[in-house]
């Protein structure tokens, strides 16, 4: 039974936003038009947070991609009255759109702000109607949605493996964001498999002492790990996180 996790190396991240676009396309996330942005209701399962560091003129932009942390003890799960979000045995914090009634309590109790609510009926321009991903449900108005580590890919891969009567190969499957990242700053894989890319990366980064997680002290045990940037400002910047 794999335990899916993700490592995001901020030292490699250039803030290009490819992951965001890829996710958008992969998961049928509605197009975030300008006024949706101004309403602060844009949906981005993985978002790129930009923080300024230092004073003009020597000012630096720091980027940090934030997908769902897939917490092991996710605070968002138990507050749902209808089991619309629960924990799969592969460690994914799953969202069941059909059960969701939209109390939005999960969003209130998610401190990484990675749960998104469909305030409006999602719309696509006709030109994009045909590129919707058939593997992914199109959500309706009034339900929550969130990153689920491209679970449809995982399921597909597992079924393939099953039909071929074998177990899942190491790093056989990856998420859209990881796939799209030009600097491969995002790595996805099985945390329990010592040979997987994520495990190796973590093991190595542990020695360099670069590993940290967001809001780790809440004790929710997130499964998305960040590797600090290798320069001092970045170190202290990360420390503030």
């Amino acid at each position, binding site marked *: 039974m794999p335990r899916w996790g993700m490592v995001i190396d901020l030292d490699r991240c250039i803030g290009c936003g490819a992951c965001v676009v890829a996710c958008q396309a992969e998961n049928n996330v509605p197009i975030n038009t300008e006024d949706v942005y101004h309403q602060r209701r844009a949906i981005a399962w993985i978002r790129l947070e930009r923080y300024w560091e230092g004073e003009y003129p020597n000012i630096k932009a720091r980027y940090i991609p934030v997908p769902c942390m897939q917490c092991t*003890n996710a605070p968002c799960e138990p507050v749902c009255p209808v089991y619309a979000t629960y924990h799969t045995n592969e460690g994914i914090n799953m969202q069941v759109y059909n059960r969701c009634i939209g109390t939005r309590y999960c969003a209130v109790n998610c401190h990484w702000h990675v749960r998104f609510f469909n305030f409006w009926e999602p719309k696509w321009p006709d030109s994009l109607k045909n590129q919707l991903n058939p593997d992914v449900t199109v959500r309706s108005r009034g339900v929550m949605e969130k990153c689920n580590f491209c679970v449809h890919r995982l399921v597909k891969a597992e079924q393939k493996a099953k039909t071929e009567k074998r177990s899942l190969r190491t790093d056989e499957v990856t998420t859209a964001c990881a796939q799209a990242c030009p600097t491969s700053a995002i790595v996805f894989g099985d945390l329990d498999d010592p040979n997987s890319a994520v495990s190796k990366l973590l093991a190595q980064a542990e020695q360099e002492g670069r590993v940290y997680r967001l809001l780790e002290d*809440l004790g929710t045990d997130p499964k998305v790990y960040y590797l600090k940037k290798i320069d001092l400002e970045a170190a202290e910047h990360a420390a503030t996180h």
Partner: protein
Amino acid sequence: MATHGHAHGHELQRTWELAPADVLGSALRWMRSTAAALRRPLVIAAILFVIGIVAIVAFPLRQGFANRQAWTYVAAAFLYLMSTAAAAPALSTALRVARSHWRRPVNRASEIWAVTLVIPFLLYLLLLPTFPGTEDRLSVWFGWPLSPWLWGAILLLTLTGAGYLFAWFSSLPDLAIVRDHGEPAQRGFAAWLSRGWVGSHRQWRIYEKVVNNIGVLYVLIYVPVMTVLASDFIIALIPGYFTAVFPAYFTITSFQAGIALTIVTMAVLRRWGGQADYLGREQFWALGKMLLAFSLLWFYFWWSEFIIFWYGRTPREIDILRFLMFETYLWPFVLSFAMNFALPLLILMWNPIRRSIAGPTVVAAIVLIGNLIDRIRLTSAAFSQPDSALLGHAHELHEVPAAYIPGISDILILIGMLAGALALVLWAARYLPFPSVAEVVGGLWLRAHQPFKHARLIVIGKTE
């Protein structure tokens, strides 16, 4: 014609037939015989008290103030006295303000405990040096200069002062009676205390106002004091114990213990103090209801802390739950849960038991013990933390210290201090008549029992 009262299963207390003269009579009887009989228990209590003092000097004091753990049981005794003896006068105020008609014989029984306040005050002064300053640790003082030492002491002093003022003023008219009709031995002191009281109409009016106001003042001081004690003695000494409800829990459970103490005192007075005419079913029933209500509140305030920690599940909260309730101090917690909530509920939920004398008394005794265990649990947990664990705004319970097992010295200290309080009360009881003549007689005018057609009823007057 069978009176319907009997069908109801509770007959009228003799209080209703008494004339003022009878009340005065039993008060004077108390001054004559009972007060004298108190000498032996008084001596025994005093001896235990001395032993306790010796124990304090011999053990914690010799080990010095740096070793806070040695002072655990001094602190426990202090907090327990604050939760029981100091809470009782608050109860009597509550009854006055609520204008309950049955309260009058009860007031004295709870007010008299105010005379013990000096003991917790001295213990507090003894304990203050064991606390580190608040500059470098978390506390509700937020590092004020001289906190907690100076400000805490001032608070306690105010409370003690208000308590004695209350005890003295509320018993002023009775002291005058002792002055005029008491035994020669008692007269002098009573005369000194009741100087100038002639019972003029004006004096009575002032008396009623002032007693109420001092009582309210006492409560208004008591609640902040308990809040501060809860945070200084428990919360601030347990790293990561971030709970806003605990001071409320501490105060409410103290009121519970105060009620219990009053009930037990009443039972003793009824059994050995010849107060059966005054402290009857009426009083025990009413206080039994209150005790039941506060036992439910015990659970409520505990639960509202527990459920948050259980649900929040941050490492800090899990540690606290393990430490205070489910691992280190499991048994003390289970006991105090049973004795402060479960047993009182299961026993007092039956009206026939509530309406008896024995029922409330037994439960009150249970609650008194349960409260003691609870306070011991909390103090032991809090005082087992070394200063190093607190300094530097510690947010986590880093290493969980083992449960503190009391030694013989601790037991001696505990018993000694409680005995000291008892001694003070016994001593005061030699100068204060039971029942309180002023209260009971004042009540006689406002209640009558009369036939109403075929029914026998009581009539209760409400002055506004």
